[in-house]
């Protein structure tokens, strides 16, 4: 899923400091699963903001709405009747949400209420970790099912750098050196030779380096199948 962290109350309050009536829009997708932009978090933000504004002595009306998904125009269109009722909208979806909203409703102002961070999953309750960098050419089968693009600080493709120490990455002792894990896994399986061949230079054109990406499925473009 896409993982995000909520922006600080201070940052959010500053964004809407001149507004008197706002909407907080949540999303039932990834941000609900990573506990940052679902109904619960939307309600908590609304209450916290009302407390802040009451303390300041300035009134604010806050409505909430949690969209099925903010990354689907079908659902984004669902708020067309109400979107004009607000001075501004705070979206608690990943960065995709406020963009879909901004594109459909050019006259409204949308603020991102979260910092979108990475593609990953929960390794324990309350802890999320990055697993994929969306490079567009997945090759994790070559690395024991582990991704050195997303999980090695240098995205190395041919083994660890000299900074790998006791399983930790040189950038931070709390960061696992994924190359250490990959090599150990291959050693345990008696297949270290899988890693011997030198891997050629990765073609990064399928990654962000090739510019914004687009995925087209002709059969779907033509209609439902």
């Amino acid at each position, binding site marked *: 899923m896409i993982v995000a962290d909520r922006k600080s*109350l201070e940052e959010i309050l500053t964004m809407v400091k001149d507004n008197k009536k706002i909407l907080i829009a949540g999303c039932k997708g990834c941000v609900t699963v990573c506990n940052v932009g679902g109904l619960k978090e939307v309600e908590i933000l609304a209450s916290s903001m*009302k407390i802040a504004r009451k303390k300041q002595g300035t009134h604010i009306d806050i409505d909430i709405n949690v969209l099925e998904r903010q990354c689907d125009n079908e659902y984004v269109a669902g708020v067309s009747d109400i979107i004009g009722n607000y001075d501004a909208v705070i979206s608690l979806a990943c960065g995709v949400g406020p963009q879909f909203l901004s594109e459909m409703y050019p006259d409204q102002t949308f603020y991102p209420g979260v910092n979108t961070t990475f593609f990953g999953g929960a390794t324990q309750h309350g802890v999320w970790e990055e697993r994929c960098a969306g490079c567009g050419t997945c090759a994790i089968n070559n690395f024991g099912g582990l991704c050195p693009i997303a999980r090695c600080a240098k995205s190395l493709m041919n083994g660890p750098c000299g900074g790998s120490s006791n399983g930790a990455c040189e950038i931070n002792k709390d960061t696992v050196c994924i190359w250490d894990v990959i090599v150990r896994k291959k050693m345990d399986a008696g297949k270290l030779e899988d890693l011997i061949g030198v891997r050629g230079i990765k073609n990064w054109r399928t990654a962000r380096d090739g510019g914004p990406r687009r995925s087209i499925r002709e059969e779907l473009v033509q209609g439902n199948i």
Partner: protein
Amino acid sequence: MRLSYPADIKVIQVPCTGRVDILHLLNAIEDGADGVYVAGCLEGECHYIEGNLKARRKVEYVKKTLTELGIEPERVEMYNLSSAQGARFAEIASEMVGKIRELGPTPVKSTHAA
């Protein structure tokens, strides 16, 4: 045993403090409560195993939020006592009321739409 506790306190009963939600605490502050505290069972003695521990985590979350908003985090507290400790209940009530009196009235004043 007839014990008195300060009349400033409004008691809201819940089946277990695990039922108390972050929003209940925030909404109370939002609606102008000077302070809110959760009185749960002793740690390790929750009928539902960890309702009181969850309540404590929620109280801590709300304290952090209040701090971020420049409001004294002491306005929200968690206490643990057993249902047999009536005297302790009264004592906690007085303690909390005393603490809130020291802090003074809430800075969260009701505002009206202009």
